[in-house]
């Protein structure tokens, strides 16, 4: 059985939630497998992250280097290509860093690549059967991945429920194995998102619009409804891409994380990136003319209507 490795994402030494999820995914591949956590970083951060990882993994490999202080995918890829066996199974979170790292790593390790995995059905010999989503979450697919020559998988955050029970793993300092990690891409800085005129993260009720709003001129319809409800207008990504609302109003992993009591998802299909920005179990009302929209799977109440008819009718009834 192949060895399994898990790349541990951390920020300032605090281990990301994905670390526990990867540990669960590894057990779904092989309950008896030897799983090694890979922690890269610099100074005190990497030590702290190793401590966190050792509560989840029996073995932790530490890579400490000044150039690893900020996770630059090209540098981490070079490191992992050097230190990992070619026939291993490498688990990486499907976040913005994982998406930057994993496809190239799969090529350099000459391994199969299964991206954005949401479920693992198990192994049949060297063939792993996993679940993915296509068409913006509108179709699920069983996918086989031939791991005979190794495999890299990225796992969608939130898809694997972490289990209780801590281990006390041992940390091995592998920093001496770090070879040439010079890169043609150099990290400069992180530019923090601008704060807008309203703070949607503080709102109790959000009237959130997506593609179903169809036109910039219709934003006013949502604003009128929000006013009638005493709510704040937020939106999904396509509305910001179209520049119809400011970035500071976007809910999702690439926008704001919100914790309202009530979330009105209006003309929003419900991609996982959008839902990733919704925390604290709000009461979700979904209005969408497509009865198959994934949002109806997570909403508490669903209404199959065109929001451009529904919103004005609701506003009128409320005023």
């Amino acid at each position, binding site marked *: 059985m192949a060895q399994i490795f898990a790349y541990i994402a951390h920020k300032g030494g605090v281990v990301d939630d994905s670390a526990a999820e990867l540990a669960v995914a590894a057990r779904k591949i092989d309950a008896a497998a030897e799983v090694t956590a890979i922690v890269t970083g610099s100074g005190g951060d990497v030590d702290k992250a190793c401590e966190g990882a050792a509560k989840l993994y029996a073995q932790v490999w530490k890579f400490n280097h000044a150039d690893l202080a900020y996770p630059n995918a090209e540098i981490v890829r070079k490191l992992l290509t050097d230190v990992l066996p070619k026939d291993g199974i490498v688990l990486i979170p499907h976040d913005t860093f994982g998406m930057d790292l994993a496809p190239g790593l799969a090529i350099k390790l000459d391994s199969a690549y299964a991206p954005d995995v949401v479920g693992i059905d198990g192994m049949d010999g060297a063939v792993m059967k996993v679940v993915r989503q296509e068409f913006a979450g509108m179709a699920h697919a069983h996918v086989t991945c031939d791991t005979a020559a190794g495999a890299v998988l990225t796992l969608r955050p939130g898809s694997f429920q972490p289990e209780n029970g801590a281990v006390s793993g041992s940390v091995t300092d592998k920093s001496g194995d770090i070879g040439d990690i010079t890169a043609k891409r150099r990290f400069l800085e992180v530019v923090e998102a601008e704060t807008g005129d309203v703070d949607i993260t503080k709102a109790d009720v959000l009237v959130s619009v997506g593609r179903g709003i169809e036109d910039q001129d219709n934003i006013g319809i949502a604003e009128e409804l929000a006013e009638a409800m005493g709510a704040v207008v937020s939106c999904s990504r396509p509305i910001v891409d179209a520049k119809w609302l400011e970035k500071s109003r976007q809910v999702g992993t690439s926008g704001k994380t919100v914790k309202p009591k009530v979330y009105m998802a209006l003309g929003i299909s419900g991609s996982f990136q959008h839902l990733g920005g919704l925390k604290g179990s709000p009461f979700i009302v979904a209005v969408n003319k497509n009865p*198959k929209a994934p949002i109806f799977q997570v909403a508490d109440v669903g209404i199959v209507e065109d929001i451009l008819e529904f919103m004005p009718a609701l506003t009128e009834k409320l005023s």
Partner: protein
Amino acid sequence: MEILVCVKRVPDTAENEIEIKGDGTDIERDDLVYSVNEWDNYATEEAIQIRDNVGGSVTVVTVGDDEAEEVLRRQMAMGADKGILLSDDAFEGSDGRGIATILKAIVKKGSYDLILTGAQADDGAAQVGGMLAAMLDLPYASLVNKVDVGSGKTIKVGREIEGGNQEMSEIELPCVLSIQTGINEPRYVGIRGIRKVASVEIPTHGAGDLGLSADSVGTGAARVKRVDYFTPEMGAGAEILEGSIEEKIDKLIELLKAKGGLK
């Protein structure tokens, strides 16, 4: 600057309800509206803007069948200078690595300073750009939402990271960038624009022209394969309100009052 943009023709998920065929082998494709992958459209726009600023040319390339030519013409109507179609029965069933292998072959036939792809497409895999870069040993950045091209051998790029923050890096040319939506505002293409490029010759290359052996691409080479589409067993899902629009509104107002959604 010589720029290559890799694009894909996909079912338009904003325009279609995706239905799975009864036997799970595919989605129902008969009445699907196809278009250029949304992310690719931003990549093409970015390439055109860079060319207009610093000079050079924009070539769009796709791997697909004859119908894929329409997306090349659409991107040429936007302002791309050339289109290349990579088409061969041997390419069918390629996984991400197979597609990247085919694209690598066409990159090697040219001389490009910048290669752009969309950040992801219909399969949500977000893989081809990163694979292509690794195969070519070129630096790479994904989820790019800003490109600053100066006169030097490096460019500045912004990547969209969690929380709406932007990670700025300096990257050496030539490089591969996967473009995120929202980086620009892709120009509108009218029917007249498409007509203008309707008769432009689009060269087609097959496996032989590209020097690709049949066992390096297609189903045979694929290590990752879709077995079937299926509808997962979900939880209860939403309580769907029925009745006339007025009845739905009355019921909703009741629920909202109970949940603190009305002030």
